[in-house]
């Protein structure tokens, strides 16, 4: 994870930021989406506070990506094993994990590196989730490697398609990281003629690396344009609009499930608290998808502002309780470093060979 301080100019906001009024979704679904977006935002802000009060060494997360992350989470064929979608996510995946069912307590335990942290047992950074029960494969720090790992799970799914398996592999990552060769690998392997892979290759374009702007390094208009050369279907979606995200992801996933072929989709998103705690984790002036969606829902009388406020309050309280609980828990023991080097705790210490 990054430690460099970002010297950031005012961030360039993604182009499309308005919530489309042409598209719509059932009211209950919209309510559920707003609920999850608020929960996710409250959690992220709690994680930032946990960092700022010295209860964590590092913070990184996805505030600003709730519209995309929640929509994705809702559309996943969720479960464990090859009959379900596989997820290869990066460190901004909290909204998706919250949607899949991760508790705030889990996320805070990871952030505070407690022994009770189910994802890594206190071994890894905030946001590096791992949930085999939902096929959320371990999130790791090296950028873009997940695009390569996705090839493997998609290969495993592809060979089961003749038996009716329609599960797909989903991979997420940032725009700057798409310059790594592993991104190109995913396009090449996903589009081998006759061996196309059921892969949803996505990019969350917030127009920044840590401090390096997209425009200063990328000649291509959209990262997803690169997939066109491989005859991969592409899409550019307003990642700040939950309805456009939901409908867009739904239609691309349908295509992948039906055809067994890949899609490369780029989501234009905001980065609301900078890159990570390394550049301060302070609020930036960018379009915020959560209040925008909230306003729409209130304007359309799907919920009242009092009902929305209740959600914020409820999650705020949950987040405080979860942080208190995690703070009271122990860290991993020193002896536990040797655990899980090999399966079944087979000895890995050469002193004992």
């Amino acid at each position, binding site marked *: 994870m990054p430690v460099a301080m970002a010297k950031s100019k005012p961030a360039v906001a993604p182009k499309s930021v308005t919530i489309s009024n042409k598209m719509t979704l059932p009211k209950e679904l919209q309510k559920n989406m707003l609920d999850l977006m608020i929960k996710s935002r409250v959690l992220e802000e709690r994680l930032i506070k946990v960092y700022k009060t010295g209860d964590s060494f590092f913070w990184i997360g996805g505030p600003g990506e709730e519209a995309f992350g929640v929509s994705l989470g809702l559309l996943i064929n969720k479960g464990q094993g090859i009959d379900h979608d596989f997820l290869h996510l990066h460190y901004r995946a909290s909204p998706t994990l919250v949607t899949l069912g991760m508790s705030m307590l889990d996320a805070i335990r990871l952030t505070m590196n407690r022994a009770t942290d*189910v994802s890594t047992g206190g071994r890894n950074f905030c946001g590096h989730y791992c949930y*085999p029960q939902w096929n959320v*494969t371990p999130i790791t720090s*090296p950028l873009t490697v997940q695009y390569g790992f996705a090839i493997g799970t998609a290969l495993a799914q592809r060979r089961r398609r003749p038996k009716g398996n329609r599960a797909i592999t989903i991979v997420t990552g940032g725009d700057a990281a798409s310059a790594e060769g592993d991104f190109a690998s995913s396009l090449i*392997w996903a589009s081998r003629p006759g061996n196309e892979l059921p892969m949803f290759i996505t990019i969350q374009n917030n127009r920044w690396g840590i401090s390096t702007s997209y425009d200063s390094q990328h000649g291509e208009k959209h990262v997803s344009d690169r997939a066109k050369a491989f005859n991969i279907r592409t899409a550019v979606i307003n990642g700040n609009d939950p309805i456009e995200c939901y409908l867009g992801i739904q239609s691309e996933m349908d295509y992948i499930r039906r055809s067994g072929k890949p899609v490369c989709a780029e989501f234009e998103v905001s980065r609301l608290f900078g890159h990570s705690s390394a550049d301060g984790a302070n609020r930036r002036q960018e379009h915020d998808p959560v209040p925008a969606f909230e306003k729409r829902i209130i304007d359309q009388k799907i919920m009242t502002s009092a009902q929305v406020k209740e959600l914020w309050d409820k999650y705020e309280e949950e987040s405080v309780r979860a942080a208190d609980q995690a703070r009271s828990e122990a860290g991993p023991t020193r002896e536990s470093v040797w655990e899980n080097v090999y399966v079944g705790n087979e000895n890995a210490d050469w002193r004992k060979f």
Partner: protein
Amino acid sequence: MASMAQAIRMALHVGETKLGVTDIFGEDVGAPLGGVFTATQGLKNAWNSPLDERGIIAAAIGLGLAGDRCVAEIQFCDYIFNTIDLLKMAGNTLWASNGQYNMPIVVMTPVGAGIRGSIYHSHSFDALATRLPGWKIVCPSTPLDAYGLMLSAIEDPNPVLYLKPKALMRVRGEELIPGEPADEKTLKAMIDAPVQGDRSSWKAKWPELEEYKVRIGEGKITREGDKATIVSYGRTMPLCNRVADMLREEGTAVEVIDLRSLYPYDWQMIKASVSKTGKVLFVNEDTEVTNFGEHLAYRATTELFYELMARPRVLAGKNLPGIGLHPNLEEASVPHLEDIMHEMRELLAEVP
């Protein structure tokens, strides 16, 4: 007797028919070639990948995450270096996920000098491999061990790096693989693709092979003796055996250990032997600085200090940027018979 390439092929056949191996893949691994050393010829689940080493290792990791069993190949270990971070990840997946995801993959790659391979077909990878915690690392020196170690590697729920000494791939063994026809020509007719002509309709006729496993972590004493110990693996192994045979003719019995597994390694075997002989030489062909033999020599020094009759020695490749093509250059770079003999004579002559 089968060559090592045939032995690996037969093990992979057992792997894909009896042990659930779903994918055997890499560059030129599938038909028609079946691998640059033909170790994957005739296998039903062998396929050609794009020429993308990072893609190969990453795909193997993804297959492992999905719970499928694969054997991935990097065509020459000289080309594995741009995958190191992925190898580190395969090694740390179980640990980093707090035991939630294991990584049941096998990666095989030809290593070492000895085929006039010049700078980029002569690299070794054993020293670096031992710096990838979470992996198990094996390196056979005979076809039978190649067979038995491959079956164990496939069955192991952890990532296993299978180093194939290039120079030994075509060398025939002295022991039959259980189920292998006794006659070399019969085996060849059954499992070697025709060198000339159309291979498109060719199919291997596999012998009824039996499962035979070499436990990972278990060395083998190939020569018994009490005057000194040589510990080696891979290409230099037959050379060490020859040195022991030559010394025996002179009346000096030295013990030779084929380590077979680099991690975990058979310390108990080394310890018992060195405690008996008091003298030890570690031989391998990777470059000598921060060499795996150094770790073993360090351990022998610290743990067996009071039983030693001479300082432990390491004979390894010179710390050079590459292995030059001309035989003079290659011979000056990696251990040869004479070098091992020279070291052994010095070691044997040493008096405390």
